[in-house]
C-alpha cells in the first residue's frame, strides 16, 4: 500500500532535476533578449550588405552611363566637326561669304 502510494505521488514531488521557477524565467528572458539582439544584428548586417551591393551596382551603372555619355559627346562632336560642316555646306552649294554689307544707321 505504502509503496503504491509513493509511486502514485512520485510525479508531483520536487525531483532532484526540478529547478526553481525564477532562475528559469530569468534565463529565458536573457536568452530571448540575446536572440532578439542577434536577430536585429543579423537583420542590420544583411540590410547593410544589401545596401552595399545596391550602391556598388549603382556605382557601376554611373560609370557605365558616364562612359556612354562621354562617348556620345565625342561622337556628336565628330559628326559636327567644323571640317565636316564645311564639307557638307560646300556639297550643298554654299560658298564662303566674301563681302558683307553692313547697314549704316544714322544717329
Amino acid at each position, binding site marked *: 500500500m505504502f509503496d503504491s502510494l509513493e509511486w502514485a505521488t512520485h510525479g508531483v514531488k520536487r525531483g532532484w532535476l526540478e529547478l526553481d521557477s525564477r532562475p528559469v524565467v530569468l534565463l529565458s528572458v536573457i536568452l530571448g533578449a540575446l536572440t532578439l539582439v542577434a536577430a536585429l544584428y543579423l537583420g542590420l548586417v544583411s540590410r547593410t550588405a544589401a545596401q552595399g551591393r545596391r550602391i556598388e551596382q549603382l556605382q557601376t551603372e554611373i560609370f557605365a552611363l558616364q562612359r556612354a555619355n562621354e562617348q556620345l559627346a*565625342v561622337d556628336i562632336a565628330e559628326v559636327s566637326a567644323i571640317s565636316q560642316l564645311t564639307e557638307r555646306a560646300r556639297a550643298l552649294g554654299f560658298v564662303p561669304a566674301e563681302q558683307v554689307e*553692313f*547697314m549704316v544707321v544714322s544717329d
Partner: protein
Amino acid sequence: MAEGPQRRLRLLIALLTVFLFVVNVQLFKVQIVDHEFYARWAEEQRVRSIRMDQPPRGVIRDRDGCLLAGNGVRYAIEAAPVHVRYRQEAAEDLASVLHMPAAYLEGQLSSRDDNGNYRQWIRIAPSVSREVGERVAELGIGGVTVKPLWRRIYPEGALASHTLGFATAETGYYGVEGFYDAMLQPEPVEWEGPVDVESVPVPWKPISGEFPRRGVDLELTLDRTVQMLVEEELARAVAAYQAEAGTIIVMEPDTFGILGIASLPTYDPEDYARFADQAPSLFEDPAVSKQYEPGSVFKIVTVSAALDAGIVNPDTTYHDQGWIEVGGQAVRNAEGKVYGDQSVTEVLVESLNVGAAWLSKAMGPELFYQYVQDFGFGEPTGVDLAGEVAGQVRLPGDVERWHPSNLGTNAFGQGIAVTPLQMITAMATVANDGARLRPHIVDRRIASDGSVSDFHAVFQEQVIAPETARMLTDMLVRTVEEGTPQAQVEGYRVAGKTGTAQIPIPGGYDPEDTITTFVGFGPMPDPKLVVLVKLERPQSSQWASKTAAPSFARLAAQLFTALGIPAGDQMLAEVTP
C-alpha cells in the same frame, strides 16, 4: 571498479588535463598575448585597397562650347586562366570576336606560371574598340574580364593641335593638355574594404568616402571658326609662298585672349605615337617655343619708346644718309638705300633701319632697354600654354654678351630673339592704349561639382601712355596705307608693320633666306583683332610685304566677315519691331 582500469582512467584524465592546459595556454597566447599580430594578419588577408573605376579626364571646349578634346571608350581584354573552365570553347568564342587565332588564345588561356599552376592574370588585348569590347562582354565567359579604358579623342582632328597638345592614358603633354595637366586629371579614389578570394569587393559595408571626380573641364578663348580660317590661310600662304614653316596668331586686343593660333608643319594629336618616333620636335608650339629675330616689325617698340619718352614726335625729322654709326658699327638701310630728310613716321612707313638706330641712340641704352623689357621681351608672357620660352634680350649689364653696337641693331629687330606670341603681345599693347595684359587661352574652368571660375584679365603694365599708343596707331595706319598697301583690307582701315628678318647662321646671316612677319590690328578706330603672320624662308619672295602682308589682308578680311565686325565708321543696323 578494478584497480587497473581505474588507474588507466586517472592517467587519461591527467593527460587530457595537461592537453587542455596546453591548448588553453596556446589559446591565451593567440587570443590575448599575440592578439594584435593575428588581428592585423587577418585584416591584411581580408581587406584590400582597390582603385575604383577611373573617371574621365576633363574635356576642352572652344569659346562656343564645341568639343576640342574629349574622351572615348576603349576596352582591355584580360583573363584569369585559373578561373576559365572551358578553355577551348572560350578561345573559339574570343577568336571570333577579336579576330585572333583560336589556338593562340587557347594557349594564352592555358598558360601556367613557373610552379605549373594556371596563371592568375593575363592580358589578351591591351586596347580594343568599344564595339569589340562590348561584344566580348556579351559572351560572358567566366574568368575573362573586359576593363574599360579612356582614350583621348580630338573630334576636330588636327585643328589647333599645337595649342591643345595631346594626352596619353595618364598624362597630358604640350599646349593646354600639358599646362593644365594637373587640373584636367581625374581624381582617382581608392576603396578599402573586405574582398573575396578573387579580390572582388564583398558588399559587407557600403563603399564610403568620396566618389571619384572627373577632371576640370576647360573652355578656351579659341574660336574654332577663327581657328579653321587661320589654319586654312596658313596652309595657303605656306604653299603659295613656298615657305618652310609658318605661324599665325589672332588675339583680342581688349582682353589678350587668343582667338586662333596655328603653326605649320603640324601633327595629329590622336596619332602622337607615330610622330614621337619620327619628329618629336613637331610637338613644340612654335608660337611660344620658337624664338627668332623679328626684324623691322620690332621698330614699333623703338618708335613707341622714343615717342613715349618725349624724345621725338611723329613729325620730328632726321637726315638719312644711308648709314649711322652705333657702338663703332655702321647700321645701314635695307639694300643700302639713302632717304635724305625723313620724319619719325617715315621711319615706320619706309621701314628705315638708320632711323630706328638713330632713335635708339638718342634714347640711350638704359631707356631703350627699359621699354624693351616693359613690352615683355626677354621673359615669358605667362600665357597658359606649355613650353613657353623667354626669348633673348642682351642687356647692357651683360658685358660678355652685349656690345654697344647692339643698341643700333636691336632697334630694328636684329640681334634680339622673340617668340611670335611676344611680338603680337607687344602689338596688342599698342592696340590696347599702351596697357599690356597677360595673354591667355583658357577662358573658364568648370569643376566636376559644376562650379565655374571665369578668367579675369591680368594687367601687367602700362607700357606707354594712351596718347602715345594712339599716336603710334595713326602712324601704323599710314604705314599700311603708304608703305604696305598689300596689307590693306577693302573697306577697313588697319594698322600694321612688316618685318623681313635675316636668319642668323654661324659666322653671320643667311645670304638668301629670310623670316617674314606682318603684325597688324583693326579695324580702326576701335580695333577688335590683332593678327600676326610669320612665314619662314619663303621662296617666292624674301620680303614680308609680298608674303606675310597679303596673307594678313586675306585673313583679316575673312575674320571681319566671319565675326561680323563692321568697319570702324559703320554701325550695325538694329532690327526693331
